[in-house]
């Protein structure tokens, strides 16, 4: 029970005041009568019926004392944790962000804060009346509604058990907004939030009748590998790792740099970091390896950011076959985009098997397509992405050159047209022809299409409807960008690695041409808790079945290989992706719960996080939550409605006591 205003105990002075009044009470007016005899008999008769009548005067005093004590007690604002109605819904929001994988509060006996929170919630659910429906929401990048108004306790336990951590960015606020929408306008609905407090969320003005906080985790220390880079030198690698320490005490440990496949680190460096210190460690003369892992060997409460992966940039270049007259500007622009150009004259060159091997895509620049009408060329052109550049001097069949009426441009969004404006560009002649089936105009100039994009047999096709020589485009900044974007779109940015990405983040991957299937292969994972993810994850596909160029990065921090396969099952190439946990999860700069907008609550939370609350047991966590809720200052957003105010009940009791007092008085209590 809580006393909202214990200072009101001063009203208990009413008790001695009543005693004083009794001591000083007015004497009865004395009335002489002839004889007591009959009165004695009358009253004796009454007293004979009720033996306690003799106590009446003291009973009256006792009643008044009780009334006064009740009044004083009521003024102290007593409250007891209330029980909501048996059908009031409970909406549970479980924070499963990466920080929940940090150590549990001391003494809880759980592996991590998430387990601790889930245990606490499960225990609290067990105590709920079985009629109360439970809705379970797991916070993630998007809130996941695991259960809706479920009353089957087994189902709830199962759902709670299925909640694992998410290492990507989590949006607790979205989960709370959803929960708020679910509890709003529902009588007696309660909102339970299980979290370690390292969230930014606003539960101010939650629609719930009661908010209950399940506090998990400790306010511990975290040493993080904030960045890890690798530079391939001529004969040795150089590495740089940045460590940041969050915590209240200095951290000591060892930073180890481990090459791919090795059990022993190639280099080790002991460190001692002051709270909040950030330091860069550089390593030189590392043997070359496919990738390196930097890991912290130290006592740390949060391990998801204790390892980072790096690999040298792979200077792999694409190769394009340029058929036709060629252009110095085009060759230079493609060269800038990292494309090696192979010039070919269709009249004299017949593509062979080695051409198939070495060519990623084809540029046909003003060439007479009749000359390419051989079996070998057709086969090559049908199996490779093609960029056709029409020329007014040798237009494609049925094509004719036209002069644009004005220089208005109209650019449609497309990977090739990104960052392209064609502003201030003058185009003298534009070829108007049928670009073929499935082609779409993505840029117009003077009302005429100048750029078509589409696909044929699953391979990208791009048509530039004018000769750059007929325009001043090669002199414009747009040209190399257009060339690079075209090369990337057509060649799938072949080669190179995928770099770093946050877990579960959406990344755009330029797929190799001819990729029919792709998959993620786990090379290594960071020392974190996993949900038993498969070592091989099939890549996502678009609605029409092709491998999507937008992929979701694997959910567990670690190193992954993105392997693409051609239509014949032959691997086309593989690229490395280092996945790290959401950075914000490891930045333990703030006190837990300082982001929930409960300024007065930090102390309480510390308390819980230090593990001094009943060994972090379910009850302990729950009670701490309740205490924190009530202790929150006005405007902190927590409603204390779940606490039942006893004052009305005391008022009723006082009224009953007054009635009893009146009855006692009426029956002649003063005798």
């Amino acid at each position, binding site marked *: 029970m809580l006393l909202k205003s214990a200072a009101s105990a001063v009203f208990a002075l009413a008790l001695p005041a009543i005693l004083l009044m009794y001591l000083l009470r007015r*004497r*009865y*007016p*004395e*009335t*002489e*009568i*002839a*004889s*007591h*005899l*009959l*009165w*004695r*008999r*009358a*009253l004796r*008769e*009454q007293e004979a019926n009720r033996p306690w009548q003799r106590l009446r005067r003291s009973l009256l005093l006792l009643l008044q004392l009780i009334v006064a004590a009740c009044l004083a007690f009521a003024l102290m604002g007593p409250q007891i944790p209330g029980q909501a109605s048996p059908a009031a819904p409970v909406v549970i929001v479980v924070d499963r962000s990466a920080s929940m994988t940090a150590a549990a509060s001391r003494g809880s006996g759980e592996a991590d804060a998430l387990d601790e929170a889930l245990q606490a919630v499960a225990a609290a659910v067990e105590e709920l009346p079985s009629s109360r429906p439970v809705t379970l929401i797991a916070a993630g990048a998007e809130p996941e509604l695991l259960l809706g108004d479920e009353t089957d306790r087994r189902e709830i336990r199962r759902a709670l058990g299925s909640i694992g951590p998410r290492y990507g960015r989590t949006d607790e606020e979205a989960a709370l907004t959803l929960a708020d929408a679910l509890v709003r306008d529902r009588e007696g609905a309660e909102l339970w939030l299980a979290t370690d407090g390292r969230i930014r969320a606003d539960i101010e003005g939650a629609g719930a009748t009661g908010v209950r906080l399940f506090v998990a985790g400790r306010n511990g220390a975290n040493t993080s590998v904030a960045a890890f880079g690798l530079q391939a030198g001529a004969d040795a690698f150089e590495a740089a790792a940045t460590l940041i320490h969050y915590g209240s005490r200095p951290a000591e440990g060892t930073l180890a740099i481990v090459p791919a496949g090795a059990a022993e680190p190639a280099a080790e460096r002991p460190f001692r970091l002051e709270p909040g210190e950030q330091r860069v460690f550089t390593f030189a003369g590392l043997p070359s390896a496919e990738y390196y892992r930097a890991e912290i060997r130290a006592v740390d409460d949060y391990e998801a950011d204790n390892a980072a992966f790096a690999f040298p940039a792979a200077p792999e270049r694409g190769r394009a076959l340029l058929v036709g007259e060629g252009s110095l500007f085009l060759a230079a622009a493609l060269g800038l985009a990292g494309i090696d150009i192979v010039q070919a004259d269709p009249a004299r060159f017949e593509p062979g098997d080695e051409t198939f091997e070495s060519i990623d895509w084809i540029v046909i620049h003003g060439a007479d397509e009749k000359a390419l009408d051989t079996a070998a060329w057709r086969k090559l052109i049908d199996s490779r992405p093609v960029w056709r550049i029409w020329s007014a001097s040798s237009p494609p069949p049925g094509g004719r050159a036209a002069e644009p009426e004005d220089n208005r441009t109209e650019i449609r969004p497309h990977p090739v047209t990104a960052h392209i404006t064609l502003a201030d560009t003058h185009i003298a002649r534009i070829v108007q022809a049928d670009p073929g089936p499935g082609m779409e105009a993505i840029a117009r100039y003077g009302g005429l299409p100048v750029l078509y994009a589409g696909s044929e047999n699953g391979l990208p096709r791009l048509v530039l409807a004018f000769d750059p020589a007929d325009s001043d485009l090669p002199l414009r900044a747009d040209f190399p960008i257009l060339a690079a974007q075209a090369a990337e779109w057509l060649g799938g940015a072949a080669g190179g690695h995928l770099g770093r990405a946050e877990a579960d983040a959406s990344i755009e991957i330029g797929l190799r041409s001819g990729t029919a299937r792709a998959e993620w292969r786990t090379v290594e994972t960071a020392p974190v808790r996993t949900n038993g993810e498969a070592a091989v994850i099939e890549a996502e596909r678009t609605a029409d079945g092709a491998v999507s160029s937008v992929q979701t990065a694997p959910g567990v921090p670690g190193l992954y290989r993105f392997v693409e396969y051609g239509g014949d099952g032959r691997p086309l190439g593989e690229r490395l992706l280092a996945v790290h946990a959401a950075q914000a999860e490891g930045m333990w700069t703030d006190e837990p719960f300082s982001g929930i907008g409960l300024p007065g609550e930090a102390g309480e939370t510390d308390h819980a996080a230090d593990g001094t609350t009943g060994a972090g047991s379910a009850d302990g966590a729950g009670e701490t939550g309740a205490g924190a809720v009530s202790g929150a200052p006005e405007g902190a957003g927590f409603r204390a409605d779940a606490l039942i105010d006893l004052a009305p009940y005391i008022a009723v009791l006082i009224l009953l006591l007054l009635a009893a007092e009146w009855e006692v*008085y*009426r*029956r*002649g*209590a*003063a*005798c």
Partner: protein
Amino acid sequence: MSAGDRAARDRGRETSGRAALVRPGESLLRGVERLAVAASGRTRGTQQGKRRSGSLGSSLEFADYRAYVPGDDIRRLDWNVYGRTGRAYVRQYWDEQETDVTFYLDVSRSMRFEPGKEEDRPDTWTETNKLLYAARIAACAGYAALCGDDRAAVVRFAGRVEDRLHPVRGRGAAHRLFDFLEQSLGPAADPGADDLRTPLAAPGALPPRPGVSWLLTDGLYASGIEETLNAFAAARQHLVFVHVLGPDEWRPALRGELRLIDAESAAAKDVAIHPDALRAYDEALKEHVGGIRRRCAELGFVYFAVDTSVPPEETVLVRMARHGLLQRQR
């Protein structure tokens, strides 16, 4: 000064000054003169009176015929019967004797008590004072007894028998009766007892000869009433229990929380007076009165309840006559 006080003062002025409070007014005396104290059964006195005696005697009241035996007074021979039948019969008449009427007047403090009045200042008392009222009834009934050729005696008692007026006879003794009653209003040596036996079971308290006794009391005795009634029966007294209570006792007008002080014992009792308590009082009163009335009926006594708020004239001339306590003289 209340109306009652003034009436008492006036009464004192118009009469001779002696027995000013007790002596009935002239009109009441005239009314009472024609009445006599009823007595049940045959009485036996020593002097000629108006009471029909248990024995045959010389009165004018015919009783029976009886065959003449030698030695009978031939003046009583019924010559008419002898003339018709030739047999001698003598007429027999009831003997008439006087009877003793003893008035037992309770002068305890509860009888004297009147709220706000001093108990030893009878001239300040109002008409509803129980002792004054009882004394007036005794005066009327005593005067009726004297007028009916009976002997009247008065015993006043509180905690013990205080004093007594030995039997007087004849209308001329009325002033002695009134004077004694007047004296009885004066201060009593004893406040009173809780047990009626204390004064009346004492040896010599009851009359030695059979007769009529009037007990004028408020009956506020915790015990001994029944035993005292038995004692009167044992003394061959025909008892009239005149239960004198004031209107405040019949129907208490008390309200609120009071500390009641007993006039006799001076004991205090806190009472919150409310309808329930008044109802309980009424019950207690009924039970008390019922107990006395029942015992009187068992013993063949007369119970007569008096409310002092009723004018004495009405009580004496109307109610007592109707109850047969005072009868028209033969």
